[in-house]
């Protein structure tokens, strides 16, 4: 029984993420709006901090993850904006889609968009801030684990805020304290990778993994009641 439930959950997740990717391909919102925003944030950081490249280079790990967090807010809002137009959310409730599957599908969609943003941001900080990373594996693993956590938490808080008129101002205040540990862990892991002393970095990845697993688990159970109330 549990196998069947898991299978239908994953199948529904695949349907939802496929639909979201197709929507992105048609509308190009992430590509044409969120991506430029992310790069803009990097540029604004340079204006805010002394353009002396030493400071920017030293702060790269933190600035990278800050840019990711700000772009994440837009990505989550976009992911749920498509679900709250024109009665779509009622259609989701009436359909036979497993709510846990919808949660995972939305999280996967947000996660994939975030990964694309992170790759571009990584190129951005390398070029703009002159930071040259060592420890490539640590960087990749950190990105994957942090993204999983951000996407899971984002999918959950996104649906919570989705049905509210004030969702655009409420989502940041709900999400940012929650993902502060991801910012800390991501920054520390990147710092370790950049300084080529990866020991501690892997421990921070452990924290990221625990965070992701926790939020995936919470989301699978809490998504359905939140979807009902949106």
């Amino acid at each position: 029984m549990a196998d069947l439930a898991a299978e239908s959950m994953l199948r529904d997740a695949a349907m939802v993420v496929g639909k979201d990717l197709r929507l992105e391909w048609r509308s190009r919102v992430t590509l044409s709006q969120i991506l430029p925003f992310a790069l803009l944030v990097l540029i604004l950081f340079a204006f805010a901090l002394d353009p002396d490249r030493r400071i920017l280079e030293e702060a790269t790990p933190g600035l990278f993850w800050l840019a990711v967090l700000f772009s994440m807010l837009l990505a989550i809002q976009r992911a749920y904006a498509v679900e709250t137009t024109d009665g779509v959310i009622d259609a989701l409730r009436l359909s036979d889609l497993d709510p846990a599957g919808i949660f995972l599908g939305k999280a996967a969609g947000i996660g994939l968009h975030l990964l694309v943003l992170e790759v571009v941001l990584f190129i951005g900080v390398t070029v703009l801030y002159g930071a040259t990373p060592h420890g490539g594996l640590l960087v990749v693993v950190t990105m994957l684990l942090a993204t999983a956590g951000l996407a899971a938490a984002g999918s959950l808080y996104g649906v919570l805020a989705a049905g509210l008129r004030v969702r655009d101002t409420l989502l940041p205040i709900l999400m940012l304290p929650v993902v502060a540990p991801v910012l800390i862990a991501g920054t520390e892991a990147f710092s370790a990778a950049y300084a080529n002393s990866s020991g501690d970095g892997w421990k921070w990845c452990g924290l990221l993994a625990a965070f992701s697993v926790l939020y995936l688990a919470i989301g699978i159970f809490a998504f359905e009641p939140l979807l009902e109330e949106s």
Partner: protein
Amino acid sequence: MDAVVRFRAAVCLLGRFPALAGVDLDVAPGEIVLLQGPNGAGKTTLLRACAGLVPVTEGQADVLGVDLVADRRPVRPMVGLLGHATGLYDDLTVVENVRFWSKAGRSKRADADAALARLGLDGRLADVPVARLSAGQRRRTALAILVARRPRLWLLDEPHAALDQDGRDLVDGLMADAVAAGATVLFASHELDRAEAVAHRSVTVAGGTVNGLLAGSAQEVPVG
């Protein structure tokens, strides 16, 4: 014969507002029942309650054997709702929307394709993004999804609205076909001439109350 819909003194709250303040309604299998009444009377809320989308806080409400007061979710796979909103993704095409929602509703691919043909959406409109369609064309798309679903209870909120003459005739035909295939139809409309022609029975909704018991049925005291 079990009633498809059976409400006794049902109350539905939308926030703090009692959209439905006391509904007595029976709908027998195979009936086409018209809900008529002024704006704000609660017709939409009643249809949504039957679909299991709005909680029933007091009284008795059974649809297709499901007790809506206890847990309204199991009724959803068995009903099809055509609401005022169309529930379509603007950037996807007609075919993509129908196929996605059919698959989400566990309808067969063949039924989805047949529905597209029946609603006249398999031609030049098929690959048009929904955002570029007129209101009537969007309504047809939503209808196609409902038809593909083959629900046992059809819940239509002003199905004739926004449609042209052909569209309205098509809707009447779909309702008749549904009933012939064993389904039941409950619909709200302001188009009284056309609606009364196709409906078996008419029920008035006013101020959130409905007196819709079948002639000759006993007046029962609600449970709880």
